[in-house]
């Protein structure tokens, strides 16, 4: 029951003696009270907090203005400032390299904090779970999937007393809704989620107007966000207003509540919430299109619940045809640890978080080493100063204090520089990060102060060595200007530190190249189809006569092909269990015959759909990719035969004919193996219109297309994307990683070479006389520069030898995450090693050559 001794000692140290008794008494008494119902660490923290609150002028020991100590520290500060001003170049270099390192560190940690804080804004976020069901096909292969049937959520609530509330989400599934407050104020919206009235029991999205309690009680109610309200009504308090959903029935919805905009750290985002109003969902266990979230009652143990899920789920399934696996995920783990099919939004990756954290520490370490190196290198200049101080009676302790104050001064300046730099980084890299960040945002202020503390502590540790080193000189020797053993061992240390710095830099260069190569590989790899110059119109359903529209389009010179489809390659497709006797999940969508040409798909065998053949038009034939054919258990000989395609309850339900096989193509990211894909042929209006646009004047073509578009629609804006962009988005995460790593690598290299340059500078200055004498005796410029450069090159070579194997294994591990990947060749090593050597050679060489070219008389005359 005793409060922490360290806090007490601290209190006694600063608190006035006459106050100490009552203050300590109060604090101890309060500690006892807190301790009665709080954990030890918590009570201790509160105790510390209270103690720190006594750091007020009234309680502190009277420090008289002219006490010896005050004067001394003041003079130390003065010396520190003078010294910094005297060695401006070194000081600037120190501040810059430290500042850059600190900026990187702050930048990454604030970014990571954002990544880690996903979904934590909900009340009791630790009690909220998502329940998901992985598909298992009859070959026992597990296909992770985030979606669940609509009957699951109500059943969970009904069957388990531990489940306090459950809610379903039904997102737009790629559909766009045309909403409007009036006829001339319509927008296409994607951020629409259908959900249950229990939505607000599970999630906490605060309302600014209206009451969330009954906000989704009736199917004609709608909840919207603040920015959506602004967009449609120009004001925020819009409870009671009406929004219309155009198309079909022109449904109207009354707005029941206005929410704050969804925080960026939410794994799903929306602008509109509607009530699920479909009938008979409570019995539907077969339609996997809903997301299920549950909130447990306080004190319920998820592990206990988890074991009951599988029997519970199976009790609702008829027979043994289905071996799917049901389990739950903590809400706060979804963003970083879940990577299922059909996630509501592209998630982050825990591995990238680790990579970034390591990089941040690397950069900070490199810059601290740099500081250490520069300071130790400079120390010989202060040899005499230390000697004189010692002669006049300075203690070792006070010398250390002097040097530490200098360190603190430099670090404080660097911290300011670093903060400003990182703020700039946030500004310019917001694009890469995908969101806006600032140090001044209240949620970041705390962590920023934490980082400052970390930096200060690291800096002080880095400054401790030079301080100890400098203060250890022997007075007599120092005054005479004789280097003792300490001086030489410091040289060895400097070399060692340089090697570490360069090893880290080489490692980062290597990593950057590998990530970049993999990106290039994915960009240039044969995808099996040609996404370049394919434009996809996403709201083709709005066209009144799609056939006529296509005919008009094909008259435009730059459009060689156009075709409708019900999905987008690399964007959106449907799935269905196919295969007999063993079912598996087949990806599919409907197309027209021209789709093959538009996409540049290649036939391996068989034929394309034909508009003339009745069986094709009736939809009894399919075209599959090679993987699809293999999964169906067919060979090339089976193409063209009518074979059973799907079964239910052991009876064949679907016969079909595979008429053609196309070459495998990538429609997911390169991390996954190519999946089976099938095309069906339907003649009906479809959502997507794919256009091949040949190179040439793109904007002119676009104008032509839009002209035709407005002839065929009633004023709805055309929505389109380019397929190669869709495909690039699949690899947005890798692109982001590569961009950030590149930035950091450049910075780390920059810091390392500043250190290198400074040390080269020092070495050359030390040897100016030697160089001059050698020159007088006839040494050539190249000979002299080689003599000095050689040693540095050797150091960098050693650094590379250390870094390369480590980098090789790390990056190999990273690449293993991709099903399709580039290889790590010898050339990669050569580039990494070569570039460090080259830069070293130029930095050091530049400095040496200047010395070698100078007139020897100039350097020999003084003294």
């Amino acid at each position: 029951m005793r409060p922490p001794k360290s806090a007490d000692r601290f209190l006694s140290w600063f608190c006035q003696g006459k106050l100490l008794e009552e203050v300590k008494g109060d604090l101890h008494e309060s500690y006892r009270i807190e301790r009665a119902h709080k954990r030890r660490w918590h009570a201790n923290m509160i105790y510390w907090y209270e103690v720190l609150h006594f750091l007020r002028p009234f309680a502190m020991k009277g420090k008289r203005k002219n006490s010896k100590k005050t004067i001394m520290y003041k003079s130390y500060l003065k010396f520190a400032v003078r010294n910094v001003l005297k060695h401006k170049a070194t000081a600037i270099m120190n501040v810059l390299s430290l500042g850059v390192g600190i900026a990187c560190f702050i930048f990454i940690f604030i970014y990571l904090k954002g990544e880690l804080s996903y979904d934590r804004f909900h009340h009791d976020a630790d009690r909220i779970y998502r329940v998901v069901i992985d598909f298992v096909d009859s070959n026992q292969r597990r296909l992770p999937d985030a979606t669940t049937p609509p009957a699951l959520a109500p059943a969970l609530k009904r069957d388990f007393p531990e489940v306090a509330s459950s809610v379903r989400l039904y997102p737009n599934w790629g559909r766009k809704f045309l909403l409007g407050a009036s006829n001339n104020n319509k927008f296409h919206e994607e951020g629409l989620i259908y959900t249950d009235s229990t939505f607000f029991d599970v999630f906490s999205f605060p309302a600014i107007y209206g009451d969330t309690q009954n906000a989704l009680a009736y199917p004609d109610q709608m909840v919207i966000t603040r920015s959506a309200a602004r967009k449609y009504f120009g004001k925020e308090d819009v409870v009671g207003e009406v929004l219309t959903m155009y198309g079909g029935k022109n449904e109207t919805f009354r707005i029941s509540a206005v929410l704050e905009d969804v925080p960026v750290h939410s794994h799903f985002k929306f602008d509109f919430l509607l009530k699920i109003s479909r009938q008979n969902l409570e019995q539907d266990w077969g339609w996997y299109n809903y997301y299920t979230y549950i909130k447990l009652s306080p004190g319920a143990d998820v592990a206990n619940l988890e074991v009951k899920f599988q029997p519970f789920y199976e009790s609702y399934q008829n027979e043994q045809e289905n071996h799917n696996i049901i389990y739950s995920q903590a809400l706060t783990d979804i963003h970083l640890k879940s990577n299922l099919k059909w996630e509501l939004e592209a998630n982050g990756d825990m591995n990238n978080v680790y990579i970034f954290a390591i990089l941040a520490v690397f950069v900070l370490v490199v810059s601290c080493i740099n500081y250490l190196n520069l300071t130790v290198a400079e120390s010989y200049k202060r040899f005499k100063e230390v000697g004189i101080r010692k002669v006049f009676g300075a203690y070792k302790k006070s010398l250390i204090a002097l040097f530490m104050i200098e360190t603190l001064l430099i670090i404080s300046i660097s911290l300011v520089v670093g903060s400003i730099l990182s703020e700039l980084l946030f500004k310019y890299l917001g694009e890469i990060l995908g969101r806006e960040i600032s140090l001044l945002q209240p949620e970041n202020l705390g962590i920023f102060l934490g980082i400052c503390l970390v930096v200060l502590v690291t800096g002080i540790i880095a400054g401790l060595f030079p301080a100890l080193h400098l203060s250890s000189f022997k007075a007599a020797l120092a005054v005479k200007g004789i280097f003792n053993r300490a001086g030489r061992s410091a040289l060895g240390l400097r070399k060692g530190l340089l090697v570490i710095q360069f090893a880290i830099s080489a490692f980062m260069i290597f990593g950057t190249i590998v990530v970049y190569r993999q990106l290039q590989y994915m960009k240039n790899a044969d995808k099996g189809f040609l996404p370049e110059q394919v434009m996809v119109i996403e709201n083709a359903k709005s066209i009144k006569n799609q056939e006529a529209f296509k005919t008009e389009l094909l008259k435009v010179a730059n459009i060689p092909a156009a075709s409708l489809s019900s999905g987008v390659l690399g964007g959106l497709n449907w799935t269905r269990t196919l295969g007999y006797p063993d079912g598996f999940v087949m990806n599919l969508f409907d197309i027209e015959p021209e789709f093959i040409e538009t996409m540049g798909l290649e036939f391996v065998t068989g034929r394309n759909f034909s508009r003339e053949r009745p069986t094709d038009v009736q939809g009894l034939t399919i075209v599959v990719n090679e993987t699809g054919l293999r999964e169906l258990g067919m060979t090339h000989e089976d193409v063209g035969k009518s074979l059973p395609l799907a079964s239910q309850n052991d009876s064949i339900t679907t016969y079909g004919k595979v008429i053609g096989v196309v070459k495998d193509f990538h429609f997911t990211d390169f991390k996954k193996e190519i999946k089976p894909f099938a095309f069906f042929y339907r003649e009906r209006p479809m959502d997507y219109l794919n256009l091949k646009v040949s190179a040439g004047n793109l904007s002119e073509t676009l104008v032509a297309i839009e002209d035709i578009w407005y002839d065929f629609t009633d004023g709805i804006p055309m929505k389109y994307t380019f397929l190669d962009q869709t495909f690039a988005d699949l690899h947005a995460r890798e692109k982001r990683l590569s961009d950030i790593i590149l930035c950091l690598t450049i910075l780390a290299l920059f810091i390392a070479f500043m250190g290198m340059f400074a040390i080269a500078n020092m070495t050359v200055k030390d040897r100016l006389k030697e160089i001059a004498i050698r020159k007088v005796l006839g040494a050539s410029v190249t000979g002299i520069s080689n003599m000095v450069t050689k040693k540095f090159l050797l150091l960098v070579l050693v650094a590379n030898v250390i870094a390369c194997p480590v980098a090789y294994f790390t990056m190999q591990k990273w690449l293993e995450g991709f099903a399709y990947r580039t290889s790590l060749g010898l050339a990669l090593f050569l580039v990494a090693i070569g570039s460090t050597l080259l830069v070293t050679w130029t930095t050091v060489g530049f400095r040496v050559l200047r010395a070698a070219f100078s007139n020897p008389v100039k350097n020999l005359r003084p003294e």
Partner: protein
Amino acid sequence: MKGTQLGEFEELVLLIVGVLFPEAYGLGIRQEINDQTGRKVAIGAIHSALNRLESKGYLKSELANATHERGGRRKRLFHITVAGKRALEKNHEIRNSLWNQIPDLAWKRLSYDKSI
């Protein structure tokens, strides 16, 4: 430099000292403030206010007997001085007089706003 103005927090502390008579000491005052107003304050803030009030002459204090909960340390007990009482009275009067000067119409207007 020290004025005789009574700050908001100081006034609160001074009143609580009166309420707790004769057992007013640092931690007890904090407890009372929390109970009566729901405000959470650090012990340091209380001590600082007490210190200021004492130097302004509004409070007097003496050390009481040691108790076990405090590890054998004595508490400092505070009580209000005549000057303290006068300062409180003055504040009270000013407040009452200002309150009485607010025209009734101002309150009527409020209830009108609400009904809209």
